[in-house]
């Protein structure tokens, strides 16, 4: 038999139902891997061993009684911005170091109902603001392919954990690329669904018109299974969309023949690392051999997506993070002189440098005299970018390009200049601005480091993206590669 951590989420769910192994065995095996790697990868903020083993034992009883759900007994991890009742939710911040949510996020509740067993909460950039996992209050996460490098961010802990096979799947969130970029840098599969597809209730808010929960797994088939259990309408989230969830697993086998693939002209620019470009071009040949029809599409306003994002996201962040006042929950400073001092010092001490930078950027672009020039202007350009995608999808079914301009970079290499860091998300932000689903799959290596290919489709085309990725993974084996030392 293969080792347990070589079996993906789908295989583990099937193996549990066939009683080939127990949920307690799985939890033990993966917890052991988590604990052994914590000193090097730092992928977790909390490991919930006792709770996990007791939930796993309950899952085994359910399986014995034949009453399990689609994921009964399967171990997973949650990004530490999904609220978990009774288990602290830090969002990677000193501000929430002691915060224990009184309720479960809808995503957490749904996965629990499907039978998944949580092993812990993963490390992340503070309040999901970062592209390298270096802004976490709990220290950087290291890339399992090379521990001197970043795993990407902000869902870097979830991505590193899945890549190192510490868990077969993890939840993540994507505001400007935070699922797809770390998936690319860690060599795994990551899906950001359509805005409104997955409930945001109980996700600590960063930029509410961009944030979307999704999944990180080792294959598109596993992503389909996990998304099917997570997605759906939620009356607790006013932007959640009332629309039936397709059976993504049943639709995985849709043939690729005739799929009209648009190559995003603007993505093959001078910023793209030649090795990354080479891998993408090779992957496109695979799509072609599977019957896809390739053509070039141009989205002329897309190069403005990073400037739009760095107005809209900080603006929304400055409003959302106003709730952290040192009064109702979160960090409070010692001996405040008065209420204003309490607010200012609690927030000054509780937030890290990047979060403060974004709050201040947002405060500025929303302030009197600047609102029209920055915020409204950005929302107008956002409309142009969205219209570019709509126009492209009139002639192609999906657009394909690189997920990131380069493979993983060194820890510390980009921390001194925020703009250089922000430009990591140059290929991913467009989908967030337009509310579109996007998926990253591993498509080869630049040297020793994984390269990600991105597929973006129209609103609610997750099934199409997953089946295209599944067909690609049927023809390639990049997604089965495991970093040395974790095999």
């Amino acid at each position, binding site marked *: 038999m293969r080792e347990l951590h070589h079996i993906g989420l789908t295989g583990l769910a099937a193996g549990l139902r066939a009683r080939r192994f127990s949920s307690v065995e799985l939890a033990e095996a993966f917890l052991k891997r988590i604990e052994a790697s914590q000193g090097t990868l730092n992928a977790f903020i909390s490991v919930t061993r006792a709770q996990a083993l007791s939930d796993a034992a309950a899952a085994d009883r359910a399986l014995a009684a034949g009453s399990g759900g689609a994921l009964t007994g399967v171990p997973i991890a949650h990004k530490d911005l999904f609220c978990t009742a009774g288990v602290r939710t830090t969002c990677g911040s000193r501000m929430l170091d002691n915060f224990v949510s009184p309720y479960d996020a809808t995503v957490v509740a749904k996965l629990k109902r499907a039978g998944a067993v949580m092993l812990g909460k993963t490390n992340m950039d503070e309040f999901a603001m970062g592209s390298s996992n270096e802004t976490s209050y709990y220290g950087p996460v290291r890339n399992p392919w090379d521990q001197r490098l970043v795993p990407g961010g902000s869902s870097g802990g979830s991505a590193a954990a899945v890549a190192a096979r510490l868990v077969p799947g993890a939840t993540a969130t994507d505001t400007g690329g935070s699922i797809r970029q770390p998936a690319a840098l860690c060599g795994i599969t990551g899906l950001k669904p359509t805005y409104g597809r997955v409930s945001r209730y109980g996700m600590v808010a960063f930029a509410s018109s961009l944030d979307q929960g999704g999944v990180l797994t080792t294959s598109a088939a596993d992503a389909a299974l996990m998304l099917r259990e997570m997605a759906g309408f939620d009356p607790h989230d006013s932007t959640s969309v009332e629309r039936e969830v397709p059976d993504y697993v049943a639709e995985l086998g849709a043939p690729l023949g005739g799929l009209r693939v648009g190559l995003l002209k603007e993505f093959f620019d001078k910023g793209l690392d030649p090795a990354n470009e080479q891998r993408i071009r090779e992957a496109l040949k695979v799509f072609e051999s599977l019957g896809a029809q390739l053509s070039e599409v141009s989205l002329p306003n897309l190069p403005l997506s990073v400037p739009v994002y760095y107005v809209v996201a900080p603006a929304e962040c400055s409003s959302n993070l106003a709730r952290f006042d040192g009064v109702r929950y979160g960090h409070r400073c010692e001996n405040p002189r*008065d209420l204003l001092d309490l607010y200012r010092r609690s927030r000054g001490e509780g937030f890290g440098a990047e979060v403060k930078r974004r709050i201040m950027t947002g405060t500025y672009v929303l302030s009197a005299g600047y609102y029209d020039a920055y915020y409204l202007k*950005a929302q*107008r*350009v956002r409309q142009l970018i969205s219209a570019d995608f709509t126009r492209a999808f009139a002639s192609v079914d999906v657009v394909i390009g690189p997920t990131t301009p380069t493979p993983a970079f060194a820890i510390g290499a980009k921390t001194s200049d925020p703009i250089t860091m922000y430009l990591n998300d140059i290929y991913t932000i467009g989908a967030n601005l337009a509310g579109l689903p996007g998926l990253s799959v591993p498509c080869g290596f630049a040297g020793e480091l994984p390269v990600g290919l991105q597929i973006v489709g129209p609103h609610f085309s997750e099934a199409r993206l997953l089946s295209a990725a599944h067909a690609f993974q049927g023809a390639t084996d990049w997604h089965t590669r495991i970093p040395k030392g974790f095999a």
Partner: protein
Amino acid sequence: MYDFPLIFRIPQPHTSRTPMALTREQIESIAALARLELSAAELPVYQTSLSSILEFVGALERADTASVTPMAHPLPGLSQRLRPDEVTEQDHHAEYQQNAPQTAAGLYLVPKVIE
């Protein structure tokens, strides 16, 4: 004691060669509006990085948006959903206050506001 400004306004610098560069006073004013205490060492760091961010997002000026409506929702045609005005939540204040730094008699405690 409260200094909530009626309008969130940040002072314009008197002389400014490059319109994007923020002054130290502007950073202090932004931090005050955002209720963030910054150390003396942090101020120049944010002065530099916020100025460069504003210069970077200044690229938006070049886009012709004369007849474009600002995007209000990421999904076309959708707006905020309303629910019937019915009571659906129970009182959880005791549970919620377990996360509060300081409470008494079911109330959140803060430093004295009214003299």
